[in-house]
């Protein structure tokens, strides 16, 4: 086999490249290390054992501006929390009702993976991911655009939607040896009075 062994294995790598690699390694390592538990982070509890590492990492390194700027600007930002610190233990899904100007109502089933076929759930998995956030109280600023999108979907200039109600359904998975709850709990978590100007803007945009 033809090979092409260089005379010196490192002769062509510039010192600037090496410094960049070193900086990059430090940045992604510092950024990826787990955050300390919230009790430790807020000072309610003193760090114990290995918690000292994430504690000091967050306090002194993670927000070191060159790291923050480099990672967030370039897109190298990363944090690996798949199934961590604990996997999700609750099933969520969403639906909505749309009320129109004439008083009539329509039901909207937001894509629910459990009801979809193999191909469709593969394609639409992003809906589940989005609702993980859009159904969460911590992200309540997502609710209005969520409801507005549903209003857009049912828009009819002759009989426009006037209200959208968002419903959250959830069921915790029972642990080993515990009885599984059969039905899902339901809660209307947001009611949106449709901003007709927003609907008109979208209609104009489509012309």
């Amino acid at each position: 086999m033809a090979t092409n062994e260089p005379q010196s294995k490192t002769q062509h790598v510039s010192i600037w490249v090496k410094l960049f690699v070193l900086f990059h390694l430090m940045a992604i390592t510092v950024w990826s290390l787990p955050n300390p538990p919230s009790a430790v982070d807020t000072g309610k509890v003193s760090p114990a054992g290995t918690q000292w590492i994430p504690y000091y990492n967050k306090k002194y390194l993670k927000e070191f501006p060159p790291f923050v700027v480099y990672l967030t600007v370039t897109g190298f930002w990363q944090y690996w929390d798949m199934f961590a610190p604990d996997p999700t233990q609750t099933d969520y899904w969403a639906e909505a009702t749309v009320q129109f100007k004439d008083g009539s109502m329509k039901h909207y089933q937001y894509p629910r993976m459990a009801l979809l076929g193999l191909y469709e759930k593969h394609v639409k998995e992003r809906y589940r991911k989005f609702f993980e956030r859009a159904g969460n109280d911590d992200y309540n600023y997502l609710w209005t655009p969520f409801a507005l999108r549903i209003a857009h979907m049912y828009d009819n200039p002759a009989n426009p939607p006037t209200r959208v109600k968002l419903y959250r359904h959830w069921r915790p998975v029972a642990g080993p040896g515990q009885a599984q709850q059969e039905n899902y709990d339901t809660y209307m978590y947001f009611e949106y009075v449709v901003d007709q100007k927003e609907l008109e803007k979208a209609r104009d945009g489509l012309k």
Partner: protein
Amino acid sequence: MNQPPQDKGAIRETIDTLNDFWFGFGSATALGLFRAVFGTLACLNFLNLSQMWESWFSERGFVPAWLGQRFLWPQVNLVWLPVEVPRMGLLNGVTDDRISLLVFVITFVAAIFTALGLWTRVSTVTLAVGIVSLHHRDAAILHGGDTVLRVMSLYLAIAPSGAACSLDRLISLWKGKTSTAITQVSMWPQRLIAYNCALLYLTTTWLKWGGHLWQNGTANWYPARLQEFHRFPVPAFLTNTPTIYFTTYLTLIVEFALGTLVFYRPLRGWILFSGLLLHGYIEYSMNIPLFSYLMVSMYISFYDGEEIAAWAKRRGAKLNRFKLTVALPKGQKLTQSAGAFLATIDPFCLVSYVQGDSPEWSAQNHSGKTVPVWRSICGRALGCWIFGWFPGFWSRFEMKALEPISG
């Protein structure tokens, strides 16, 4: 103060070893193979997203531009300067859906070209900028696999990722513009991919170890019962006690090994095989599109290009029934560039070329039966699967591949 000379030597040796590991030169094959696999996965990702483009990237969608900006704090404050630095993104603040669609389409095309290794430098840079722009436009729908996609696309953009397993290399070989020797590149981009992969597993294991369910051994109980994630049925004994305790702790052990011991060569193969089983199970049982494929694609970076090429040759040597002997027209031989081209597209070395007695090309399979020449080459040479089936390619190749035997 006065260190013994042998200690100084040991330190120097360690630095040299690290220097060689990170910045030494080696075959570009692993990087090229990773690029081809990754590019294909990126294509599938965009094919998937294209069916819901309006929902996620348009102003009428669930995440209009202003919301995308708000979700992912768009600017970074420089503590010591009164300025803000924007995130990289071609779609920052863009409310014209036509521009968003154009960026999406260009990124999709760049993914196809990246997979093929065509105009690789431009393709990989375009792909990276496109993926970062789309992720910064709408981060509300991203999962761990998407982060892998973004980070790896950036590594490929700064790496010489078209130096092997690419149409670029084949074209250069055909035109005689590059050496037939295996391209040697500095290993640091490939090492970064491997390090990032290990870092991913190590930090997620660390985070999990702080989780109550991972500690008490029941973590794997829950995902198996989430209806919204369900894909294919799994035998009940695998998701019930006591197996669940075993699989939960085994997951932690495998992930920890993938983050640490994977760099120890005697264990590397077994650890990566365990990772394949882990992600194979996730892929089978849970609906997280492309996540497992993207994760295991990074495993390629733990192998040197020379190892991959040698493995392919070893496998090829065992595939006797797929061997093909192609006889060249009488009095003709392959030009140097054609020989290099044909050798490059056949990593398993299943096709051999010999002088023939007839005026035409001919081919015989392992049992001596005459078979169609180009169709048989295409079926065996992995590298020509992407272009060898185009009508007219081989007739043009025939015309230019031969030269008379001198003397």
